[in-house]
């Protein structure tokens, strides 16, 4: 890879007593990309992020952010980071506006115009005391604080889980803007459509280990394609091809899942049998996700 690595962890291990939250995690995020960080609850996403922010010390392995060690140089690193936690907790007696100003000031001060614009776009009332805000509104505080000042790296931990669809689209626009400005984004999520729309590359993490990493195209390559064909008489021939799964016949149509490597063989067979209609759809991230999660059990 020619582009510079903004985040790099290798064989990262984090133990809490006997439990291993991270078990040799490798994560590479290059400059300028929006990187999806996918995994089920408890997979170690938030722990990884806390290590990257210097809040927790890795038990073993190395982590580098901007080429620096986050544990010893978090102050330098965090100057260029904007962070939105998954569960935003605010100071009950501060108003939303005061919390935004505090957080941006600690990073060096907000761009006043952008702050005002974000407050308007997110339809946020900054004058209320934080204890009266709902989950979504607390998340808006963290999002506005993060985007109101330009950062080199945005670390977002399930940032839109409390937002309604309208606000989610505001959020997406901000990610696009950050990407346009050349910033790097690490977006932890389990909302697949969001990752599919926003991310250039994805790392899937399960039980503290990265199980897949690559562009969406790469991952789809690893995954299966769904076929729906008509006019095929002999399904047993299809079934006998290595890499064809879940063949089922509904009336005139046959459906099956095909591994990437088996696609040429399937096409040859379909041509030989004189199929009258073929629909092939790339596997959604959903099915990719399900495949990895289900093997976890």
């Amino acid at each position, binding site marked *: 890879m020619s582009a510079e690595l903004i985040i790099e962890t290798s064989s990262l291990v984090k133990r809490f007593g006997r439990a291993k939250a991270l078990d040799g995690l490798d994560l590479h995020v290059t400059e300028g990309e929006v990187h999806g960080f996918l995994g089920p609850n408890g997979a170690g996403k938030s722990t990884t992020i*806390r290590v990257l*922010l*210097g*809040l*927790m*010390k890795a038990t073993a392995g190395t982590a580098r952010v901007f080429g620096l060690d986050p544990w010893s140089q*978090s*102050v*330098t690193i*965090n*100057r260029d*980071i904007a*962070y939105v*936690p998954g*569960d*935003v*907790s*605010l*100071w*009950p*007696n*501060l*108003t939303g*506006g*005061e919390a*935004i*100003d*505090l*957080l941006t*000031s*600690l*990073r*060096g001060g907000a761009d006043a115009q952008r702050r005002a614009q974000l407050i308007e776009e997110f339809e946020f009332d*900054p*004058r*209320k*005391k934080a*204890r*009266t805000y709902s989950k979504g509104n607390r998340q808006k505080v*963290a999002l506005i604080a993060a985007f109101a000042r330009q950062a080199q790296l945005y*670390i977002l931990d399930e940032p839109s889980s409390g937002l309604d669809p309208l606000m989610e689209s505001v959020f997406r626009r901000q990610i696009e803007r950050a990407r346009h400005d050349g910033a790097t984004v690490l977006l932890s999520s389990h909302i697949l459509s969001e990752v599919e729309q926003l991310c250039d590359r994805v790392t899937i993490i399960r039980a503290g280990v990265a199980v897949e990493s690559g562009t969406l195209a790469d991952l789809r390559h690893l995954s299966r394609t769904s076929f729906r064909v008509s006019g095929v008489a002999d399904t047993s021939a299809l079934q006998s091809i290595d890499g064809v799964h879940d063949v089922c016949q509904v009336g005139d149509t046959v459906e099956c899942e095909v591994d990437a490597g088996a696609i040429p063989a399937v096409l040859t067979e379909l041509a030989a049998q004189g199929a009258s209609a073929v629909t092939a759809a790339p596997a959604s991230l959903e099915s990719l996700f399900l495949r990895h999660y289900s093997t976890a059990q």
Partner: protein
Amino acid sequence: MRAVMLLLAAQARRDRWVLSIWIGGIGLLGLAVGGAITTSFAIEAERASIVALFVTNPAFLFLRGLPDGLSIGAVAFLQGFSFTAVLAALMSTFLVVRHTRADEELGRAELLCSTPLRRNAELRATIILGFLANASLVVVVAAGYTVGGLPFGGSIVAALAVGSVGLFFVGVAAVVVQALPTGRGSNGVAAALVGVAYLVRGIGDALGTPNAQLTQVTPSWISWLSPIGWGQATRPYSEPMLTPLLLLLAGFAVLAGTALVLRSRRDLDSSLVSDRAGASTARFGGRSVLGLAWRLQRATLLGWCVGVVVLGAIAGGLGPVVAQALQDNPSLSALIGNLVPGVTADIVDIFTAALLGIGGVLAAAAGVQAVLRLRTEEAEGRAELVLATPVSRVRWVSATLIVSGASVLAVCTTLGLATGVAIAQSSADMTAIARFTSAALAHAPAAVVFVAVTALVFAVLPRLTIALGWGLLVIGLVIGQFGELLQLPQWLQDVSPFHHSSAVPVEDLDVVAVLILLGITGVVAVAAIVLVRRRDITA
């Protein structure tokens, strides 16, 4: 009713350790005081002299309560009751707030209210839990006093008085939580009301009239305005009287009933006092870590300062009244001369110095409370937000330590000024202001030790910060207030920083002790700042 019982079981289970510690601790204190009086004051002449010391010194009457004869039980009751009653009251208010307003604020109550329960079911369960906790307290305290060697019958009455005061404050807190929007605010107001009950009783007792033999003091009517005064009026070890307890029980019933009605009529999350809209942008002070630490402590500190202004005004206003009373009674003045030979100190000074000592404990409490914010910030995830910005942990912890130290100084100074102004006003002696302000500040070095030690606990054992922070302060307070009475070994008494404070203006300022206390504070605070960098920020 079955649902209420289920809630009660859940609340009791959640509280099983907290309440065991409270009840066991208060029982142990009863055992210790009873045992100490039985062994150290076995001879009646010794008891007569200590009782005479109380009768002649309104400061003791104010702090401890009323002498009620020379029996062993009466002397133990005099030494221990008001303090024990305050502990029972605080146990009760914290219990109620924890299960009602605090849960409501955190959104747990919403989950419960969505089930087919009556709106006030949770409050009912909490009131029953408060009743059971105080009933257990009666049993344990009665056992403690009896095992300590006090007469059985009187011990039962004394324990009933403690438990009834506790129960009364279950009712008080149940009403307070209906009025305030937050658990923190409710805890503050309910605890302040406990303080008011203690102060009112103190004023009434200090203005009481002694009998001719100097074995007994009849309180002024003011003591009858305080529930703790009612508990004391049972006089368990002389002429036991249960009627004042009926007053406490009736008060509890009325308050609890009011709270239940208020709860069943109000919306979830609503309160009498509610939030107004605030600023949409932060002012300059709200844009830094130090500003944040200050902002978080501001309102609480104001509460502490108002509290000590009241205390100082009482101390300063009461002193001259007491001195006048003594002047009018030559036999009393002669007795003081005999009891404390060589002490030529002004009676007003003795009285005031004792109160300023209490002020030192309050200042430490204000400082410790400010440090404990660090842990709450961490546990509730806000530390993460701050530390994910280019703010180092050193800066984060230091900012809070600065605000905590300033809180200690503010509480001491305020108390000293209030006392001095009150005395200056009645005696037309303007030097009193400077004299008592510096006297109050003499207690600050001991108080800041607690601030630093709490910070160290936070750095090393974060999960125990809140328990140990308050626990160490209570231990320091008990050693300071009861150490000599319980004849604790000298080294143990020396461990308490308060033991090294100078009771200015009665004593001279011990400069070496001040320097040592400040040195310890500095070393411990630096250790805390260094060690906090080595651990994970955890929830």
